[in-house]
Structure formats: structure tokens, C-alpha cells
């Protein structure tokens, strides 16, 4: 029996098509979502870092500051909010995270940040 006669380079190199449910399929499906994630992360990074010191505040930054103020008032009361605001700079995610983490814990602060950044 001539086994070598059946061998052909094309058939040897042929790769199986990505079937739904296979690892290749999921890898391809996951990579298609990378652009969305990158865009969202770029936006969130801007909101995180430029919340307090930028002169031109966008609508999203204003929304973040407003939501943070609401949460701060709910968690610590009006007095804490006014004393923090009295220091000059408006509230941002970066500046408010330490105080939330100290009093609420890491997980709750992460959830709070997620809600603040909802739909942004």
C-alpha cells in the first residue's frame, strides 16, 4: 500500500475551519470586541485623570462630578461634601477614590465607580 502516494502538501497544510464553539471561534469573536473596549477605556482614562484640573470640562466630566457629589452626599452627608468642595478643586474620580475606599472598601468603591461611569 502506497501511503506516500496519498500525501499531498495542500492537504497536509490545510487547517480546519473555525467551527462555532471551538477555541478558534471564541478567540476570533473575542478579538472583534477589542476595539470597543479600547475606545471605552480611552474615554474612561480621560475622565479619570482630567476630571479635576482641566479648564474645559466636557459634558461627561460634568456628569461624573455630579454623580460623585450625589454619592458622596448619600454616603457621608452634606457636611462632608461641602468641606471637601471647600478645598477648591471639584470632585473627580481620582480624588474621591481614596475616601470612598477608606470608608466603603475596595469592592464597594469599584461598584460605585462603575455606576458613576454608567453609559459613559
Amino acid at each position, binding site marked *: 500500500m502506497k501511503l506516500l502516494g496519498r500525501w499531498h502538501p495542500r492537504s497536509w497544510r490545510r487547517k480546519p475551519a473555525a467551527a462555532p464553539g471551538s477555541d478558534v471561534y471564541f478567540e476570533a469573536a*473575542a478579538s472583534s*470586541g477589542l476595539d470597543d*473596549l479600547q475606545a471605552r*477605556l480611552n474615554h474612561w482614562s480621560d475622565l*479619570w485623570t482630567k476630571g479635576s484640573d482641566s479648564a474645559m470640562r466636557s459634558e461627561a466630566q460634568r456628569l461624573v462630578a455630579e454623580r460623585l457629589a450625589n454619592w458622596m452626599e448619600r454616603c457621608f452627608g452634606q457636611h462632608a461634601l461641602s468641606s471637601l468642595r471647600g478645598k477648591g478643586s471639584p470632585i473627580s474620580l481620582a480624588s474621591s477614590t481614596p475616601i470612598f475606599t477608606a470608608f466603603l472598601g*475596595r469592592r464597594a468603591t*469599584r461598584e460605585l*465607580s462603575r455606576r458613576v461611569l454608567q453609559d459613559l
Partner: protein
Amino acid sequence: MDAQSAREETIRAYQLHAGVLLAYAHRLTRDDALAQDALQETYLRFFLALVQGEHIESARAWLHRVAHNYVCDFLKTAAMRTAVPLEDAGEDRLRDERGMPGADRAADWIEAAQRFLAPREWQCVQLRAEGFDYTEIATELAIRPGTVGSLLHRAAKKLRIRMRKKERPA
């Protein structure tokens, strides 16, 4: 960690684990769109955790846990939305709920497994099925590796008993 580094780290983790995580989410949900949502949400939370200074020992374990919790929460909420009060439920509906549900419905399947496995046992089985070793599962659940072995042994025993009961003729 600053936002820039957290973003880069998140993208790196996405490139490394997203395929496996999507497959995991898909196995839990049996729904492409929901699995994609779970994937995106998990990585957004990963970014927030990093930027808030959380130290993540094993990114893979952390991502699987968060994806698992997200899917379970979503399915629980969905189940609550469609829940019918007991007095309104007909006899047929009650009989269906007592039987073993179809494997294609992830919510029912999770609910059924949770009926006979303790939460910790179920978590261990899930993580083990994903290829985590005992040490990784122990780190993930904040327990000792020996306890992981005990929990898996107990879960396997329960499953065996359950299957034997099903095989036995009525």
C-alpha cells in the same frame, strides 16, 4: 496604578485571556450577546480595580471569578423578573420546576446544580473545569489547597449519588 498603565494592563490581559473567558461565559449563558456583554463588563471592572490600586495576584483567576459573578447576578435578576408568585403558578408549572431542567437553559442548569452542591463546592467544580489547579482555586476562594481537595471530593460524591439515583428504575 495610574489610568494609562491600567489601560495598557487591561488590554494586555484581554489579548491573553479574552478567548478563554468568552468560551467560559458562553458555556454559562449559551448566548453569544450575553457572553460578549459579560466579557466587556469583566474587563471594564478589571480596569477599575487596577486604577483603584487593587493588587491582583492572578489576572486569569480574577477575571473568571468576576465573569462568573456577573453572569450569575444577571441570570438571577432575569429569573426574578420572570418569577410568578407561588399562588399564581399552576400544577404543571410546579411539576416542571421539580424535574431536571433542560441543559440548554443555563439559568435552570445553574439553579439545579446549586440545589445539590454547596456554593463553595460548585465554585470549586467550575474553576476546576476551567483548568485551574488546586493552588489557583485556593487563592481565588481564599481557602487552603487541602480544603479545595475536600470540597471537590464531596462534590464528586454528591454527583455520583445523584447519578446513581437517576439510573435506578422507579
